[in-house]
């Protein structure tokens, strides 16, 4: 009973602190894009960026953020949107759904007109559910889970979703490689892997490609020998491995060590796989992606700009972050052109309509939307035969 007052004081204290913190959170956040401060001529437009910048999945969040910031910086250097500079407010959600929703509300409080984010599936779903209430325009660079766009018309993906990628690779295996039997190994702790795997298996069944074995593994596993041994014993001609590059690298190494010589197929999480295994293991490895560093004018331009800014090569996440920013700003431009006032419901709807009806020429291909939040864009197959990614074919 006595502790009631204690509780009271503490919660009051907390309140005081939160109240204080919110008053200065504006400055705390805006140091993101390094583009603030020059808002005199024509004012500025606030755009939110929500990504895990620390924690276990920080590598993906940092990549997406660096890509998006690069695009916004370029736009600002070119004069902004109708003379208004874009101000980025970037919050770290630490890969956690709770923090993602908290920070989403924080961005809303800060008065952003649209948000780029989130990055990984579960937090993105949480934010997608919350954002519907506000009809807040949101573009995710990398949440491939098809359910994120199912909550409302305000949510868009810049990336191709899991089923599309799985289906593509099944067709590629059957039609281009002439494979008749496959096995899969996928991370059962990751929605992305499961989604790709399921679509792949379904498509294989349609194409009369035998799926001999589906092996799962848990998040954080490093030893895939048992599963790979089963796969090799099943006599599969190819292994489909729809995971992120770190796991893929280890799977490729271990599969080759166990004597597997067939094809290994992946999806867009494979972008950096070549950095995680020996080049001589990578023969007959293919993956589908919408971005790879290949010789193309647009891509070269992006890669050079990215290198100049970050001192390293961009990957899939960086490119998708860049395109997500492009998609969102394209929508904002439509609202600005219509002369609407930021913060109003009409403005938000105009941004959403602008995204839905617009087409942008991103570095991951031309992105447009046909009524849903999932993009229609081209996909290509990349070969790792030489030990590093090379364009193989458009698909």
């Amino acid at each position, binding site marked *: *009973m*006595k*502790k*009631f*007052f*204690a*509780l*009271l*004081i*503490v*919660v*009051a*204290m*907390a*309140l005081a*602190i*939160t*109240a204080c*913190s*919110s008053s200065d959170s504006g400055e*705390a*956040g805006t140091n993101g894009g390094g583009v603030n401060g020059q808002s005199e001529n024509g004012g500025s437009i606030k755009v939110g960026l929500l990504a895990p*910048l*620390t924690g276990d999945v920080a590598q993906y969040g940092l990549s997406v953020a660096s890509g998006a910031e690069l695009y916004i910086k370029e736009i600002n250097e070119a004069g902004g949107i109708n003379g208004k500079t874009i101000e980025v407010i970037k*919050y*770290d959600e*630490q890969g*956690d*759904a*709770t*923090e993602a*929703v*908290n920070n989403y*509300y*924080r961005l*809303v*409080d800060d008065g952003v007109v649209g948000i780029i984010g989130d990055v990984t*599936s*579960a*937090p993105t*779903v*949480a934010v997608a*559910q*919350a954002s519907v209430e506000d009809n807040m325009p949101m573009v995710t660079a990398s949440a491939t*889970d098809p*359910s994120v766009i199912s*909550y409302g018309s305000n949510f868009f993906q810049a990336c191709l979703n899991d089923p599309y990628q799985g289906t593509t690779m099944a067709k590629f295996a059957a039609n281009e490689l002439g494979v008749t039997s496959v096995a899969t190994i996928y991370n*059962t*702790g*990751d*929605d992305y*892997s*499961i989604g790709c795997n399921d679509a792949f298996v379904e498509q294989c069944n349609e194409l009369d490609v035998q799926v001999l074995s589906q092996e799962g593994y*848990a*998040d954080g596993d490093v030893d895939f020998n048992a599963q790979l041994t089963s796969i090799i014993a099943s006599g599969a001609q190819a292994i489909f491995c729809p995971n992120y590059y770190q796991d893929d690298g280890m799977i490729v190494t271990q599969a080759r060590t166990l004597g597997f010589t067939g094809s290994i197929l992946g999806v867009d999480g494979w972008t950096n796989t070549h950095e995680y295994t020996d080049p001589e293991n990578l023969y007959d490895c293919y993956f589908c992606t919408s971005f790879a560093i290949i010789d193309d004018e647009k891509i070269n331009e992006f890669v050079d700009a990215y290198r100049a800014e970050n001192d390293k090569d961009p990957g899939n996440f960086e490119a998708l972050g860049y395109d997500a920013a492009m998609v969102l700003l394209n929508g904002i431009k439509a609202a600005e052109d219509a002369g609407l006032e930021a913060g109003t419901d009409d403005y938000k709807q105009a941004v959403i309509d602008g995204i839905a009806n617009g087409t942008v020429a991103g570095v991951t291909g031309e992105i447009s939307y046909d009524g849903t939040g999932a993009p229609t864009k081209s996909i290509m197959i990349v070969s790792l035969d030489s030990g590093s990614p090379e364009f193989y074919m458009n698909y």
Partner: protein
Amino acid sequence: MRDKYKRIPIPVRYLINALLCAAFLVIVQSFISGGSISRYQSGILVQIGVYIIMAVSLNIATGYLGQLPLGHAGFMSIGGYSCAIFMMRLADKMGVETADLLIPGLIFGGCVTALFGLIIGIPALRLKGDYLAIVTLGFAEIIRVFMLNIDSLLGFKFTGGAGGLTGIPRYSNFLNVFISVILVCFFVHTMMKSRHGRAILAIRDNEIAAEASGVNISYYKTLAFVISAFFAGIGGGLYAGSIGVMDPTKFGFMESIEILVMVVLGGMGSMLGSISAATVITVVNQVLTSLSEYRMVIYALLLIVVMMFRPKGLFGTYDFSLSHVMERLFNRDFPKRKSKGARK
């Protein structure tokens, strides 16, 4: 016990505290509806409430009982999943708003978690110290694997697997979380002041002596553990309703440690400690976003340093009492309360 000092009668003490809580609730609620507290801030208040419940419930097992379960996040996830699934399914069947089922939902979530607490508690509490820690840790891992993979075993969508349980109506708000916090704290407080609570404290201080004095060790250990699990389940249920998504990967070892950090820093055996540590840590996480990279390292160091210099946590077993302070004001020569830390 009659003494010469002016005492505040117990019913009056209860009344004062109840009134203060109600007043606080009304003030904050009017701020929220008036818009002076934004949704972000009220979201943080809800989160603080959830973690207060988590820390207070873990404190029952760690602070009062003196055991170290490392699977509190597992209990949180059981509570969250069972509460959310129960409410969503039932609301569908009965055709009512999900939020109307909050009370049965939370009780259901708490009971399911308590049941799991019982299942793991009976064998685990036969073991001591490190073994108990590792068994509860293992148990939480098993729970996590189940939540991830149960769908493929059942063949229909139940927990949502790796994608998490999505589409949970966001039924938690400041009002119901605050009331839950009050009720949980009230229950835990009165329990600890009762015969049962003293038995639990006696076990912590000296198991052999307690047994010799006729305390039924296994019964009280299990009781404390089950109650701890029950409230963790309620915390989990409120968590699910505050975020709208249950992501199984969240409830790993790290989450258990984070709750443990709150209890340990606040003071093992101090409700004031758990409450303030849960509040301060949640708020600090928000304020120091720029330091978030260093956050975990700082917590780890704090944990080590606190263990070295204040092994009982910042507040030790001290608990604040408003009535006591008032009595001190009424009576000039009121004796200082004996430190509870003197127990051992």
